């Protein structure tokens, strides 16, 4: 049983990660390498990636920390509303963020027309702005959850000793967050640097490494150059990975108290700050909603279904169905598989458990755009190439690590004596899992399922190589419409994805409400 399981895992990881990655590296020849890095595009792409990436990372981290702190530590009104709004950008593809910016600030943008602005959003400024929209919510939720877990007792002591709030923040909160800030910094930088959705749409002449790779490998099918750039894109993710490992999490104190927020301590500035952020987040989405029903946005605002119908005529419904199928398969298989590995790595002992853990967090280091290229090269002549299955497979592997870590985190909180009791009472392991473990981790399972689903629904990185010939997911229509300058249709698709993801989120929220936690 144990042996079969380990063999299955070895086969899945070999085929799903190592073989494709190996094929990618095998494509790199010394000549190809020299040619790529000597090209003038390459050095400017490296510079563009690092400069825009750093600026966007610093700004999104600062905004995210400020927003999370305001929501967690001040008696702000409508907290839940803000949390929901801040989460919305995580439900649409990264490329949609730059579409939103173009719709607002582009040559024909809504705000551009109203205020007669004439600055140029295309280029570094657009990349930075779009990347912030894309990365802000991720950083925000990391900071939120870490702030929620902070032990309140030092603050009580500080309060009694009369330490001012600002010193409490500097001397208690910041040191507590140091580790999170460092690891989130690298994770967000790597996320921004390896994303091509934002810069492809809004970068204009500013080409980043990921766009360069997209142009070479996806558009021109130059896999050799693509592999070289792909190898470079792995670097930031590996740094993020190492930063996380070398910077171990502090143990949660068992006696931790929740931090109680002083009712008097509410700040108008904090509320206005969160309201402005919400406006910035909602504006592009509202613009999309207007745009898709306007005859010719923004000049002729008369109502029409023309754009929606045209998008459907171009196959949006079929592609949406493809995406649904892929998302459900990825989420179902991914959730079961990541649960199995998390269970094994936390609830068994020894060498195998440690290897499984390392394997499970390894996919974090491979950007989708590099993994997808590896898949094309490796699977090109195999029968699953060109099917929905390969799209689901690449999604499961690509998004594997986060749900795995969610489950691991939950399982680590369950006493290992549960299994020992099972052994002593003669309860077979599968019943312990079915009747005791699974009910306890149910909410985490929902969360994992939603994570796989939402990401499979909106990803355009790894899948962009594989479809066609595989059936096309709807998110890829956005890049297609981008190339055709059909901005309204791209908006229709973005809204369709948003609504689908929203529906799933609402479904799980209702499920959670209906069956309250038993712990």
């Amino acid at each position, binding site marked *: 049983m144990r042996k079969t399981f380990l063999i299955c895992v070895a086969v899945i990881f070999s085929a799903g990660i190592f073989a494709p990655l190996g094929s990618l590296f095998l494509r790199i020849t010394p000549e190809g390498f020299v040619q790529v890095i000597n090209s003038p595009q390459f050095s400017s792409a490296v510079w563009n990636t690092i400069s825009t990436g750093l600026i966007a990372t610093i700004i999104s981290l600062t905004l995210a920390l400020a927003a999370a702190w305001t929501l967690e530590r001040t008696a702000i009104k409508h907290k839940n509303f803000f949390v929901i709004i801040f989460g919305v950008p995580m439900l649409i593809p990264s490329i949609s963020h730059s579409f939103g910016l173009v719709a607002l600030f582009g040559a024909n943008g809504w705000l551009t027309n109203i205020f007669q602005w004439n600055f140029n959003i295309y280029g570094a400024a657009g990349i930075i702005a779009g990347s912030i929209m894309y990365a802000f919510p991720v950083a925000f939720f990391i900071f939120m959850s870490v702030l929620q877990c902070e032990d309140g007792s030092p603050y009580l002591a500080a309060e009694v000793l009369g330490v001012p709030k600002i010193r409490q923040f500097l001397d208690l909160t910041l040191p507590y967050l140091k580790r999170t800030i460092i690891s989130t910094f690298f994770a967000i930088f790597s996320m921004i640097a390896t994303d091509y959705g934002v810069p492809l749409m809004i970068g204009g002449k500013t080409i980043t490494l990921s766009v360069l790779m997209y142009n070479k490998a996806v558009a021109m099918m130059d896999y050799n150059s693509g592999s070289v750039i792909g190898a470079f894109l792995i670097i930031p993710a590996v740094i993020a990975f190492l930063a996380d490992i070398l910077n171990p999490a502090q143990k949660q104190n068992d006696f931790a108290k929740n931090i109680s927020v002083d009712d008097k301590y509410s700040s108008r500035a904090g509320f206005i700050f969160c309201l402005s952020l919400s406006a910035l987040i909602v504006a592009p989405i509202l613009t999309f909603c207007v745009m898709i029903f306007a005859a010719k946005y923004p000049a002729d605002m008369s109502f029409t279904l023309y754009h929606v119908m045209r998008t459907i005529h171009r196959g949006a419904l079929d592609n949406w169905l493809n995406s649904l199928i892929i998302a459900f398969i990825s989420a179902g298989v991914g959730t079961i598989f990541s649960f199995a590995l998390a269970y094994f790595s936390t609830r068994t002992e020894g060498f195998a458990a440690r290897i499984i853990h390392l394997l499970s967090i390894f996919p974090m280091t491979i950007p989708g755009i590099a993994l997808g290229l590896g898949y094309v090269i490796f699977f090109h002549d195999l029968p699953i190439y060109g099917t929905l299955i390969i799209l689901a497979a690449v999604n499961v592997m690509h998004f594997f690590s986060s749900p795995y870590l969610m489950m691991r985190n939950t399982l680590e909180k369950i006493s290992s004596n549960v299994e*020992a009791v099972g*052994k002593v009472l003669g309860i077979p392991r599968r019943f312990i899992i079915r009747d005791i473990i699974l009910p306890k981790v149910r909410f985490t399972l929902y969360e994992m399922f939603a994570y796989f689903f939402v990401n499979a629904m909106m990803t355009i990185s790894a899948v962009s190589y594989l479809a066609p010939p595989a059936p096309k997911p709807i998110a890829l229509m956005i890049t297609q419409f981008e190339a055709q300058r059909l901005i309204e249709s791209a908006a229709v698709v973005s809204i369709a994805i948003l609504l689908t993801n929203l529906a799933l989120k609402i479904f799980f929220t209702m499920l959670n409400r209906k069956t309250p936690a*038993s712990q």
Partner: protein
Amino acid sequence: MDIQLKLEVKEISKAYGNNEVLRRVNFAVLDGEFFSILGSSGCGKTTLLQILIGLLVADAGKIFKDGADITTLEPARRGMGIVFQNYALFDNMTVFKNVSYALQFHSVDNEAAIKKAAQMLDIVGLKNFSAKMPAELSGGQQQRVAIARALALEPDIILFDEPLSALDASTRLDIRRELKNIQRTLGTTMIYVTHDQEEAFALSDKIMILNRGVVSQIGSPEEIISAPANDYVKTFVLDNLQTKIDSLRRFLT
């Protein structure tokens, strides 16, 4: 009167790397006896219990139960129950289900399982708490559920790992009395691990004192008090007891 040998432990040793946690431990427990294992923190008590129940494999040595070698038998087939220090209740199940759940895996039919669970809950005084969830109970009550759960499978030996250390003084006293009662009514042999001298001396028919993985002395409380085997027993066990008695006396007069 013929008192039978229930459990015999011979030359058990266990090391974690270079850390020799148990060194050639030998002892025997009689049928129906209340046997305490007393030792300070880290001396290997939990390790020994886990070896006895089969959750851990010893490096050397043998374990006999009713004369049969059970050294390599699976935990569930040893006819022993265990109560963990943190109880490890199934907290998504009701109190009743906690006790009845495991019976289905021992070819007990549903009706008999229900009867059995009710009987066990009655014994530990939780008849009226069947429908509650573990989180709704006090620490002492949770402990009783864990005891009832272990009793339901009719083990002839029950192991307790520092079962009372998380409870307040008066609850401890209650549960101690109950344990003695259960021992008398069901005749279950009890092996009780603790670092509390007072507890060991109050409850036990026999005490084994463990010092850094080595057995210092085995005997009845009277034997240990009248003839401590070595300095460790004298200082760790008896002096501590004496201090407690002295302070009590001062308090009473």
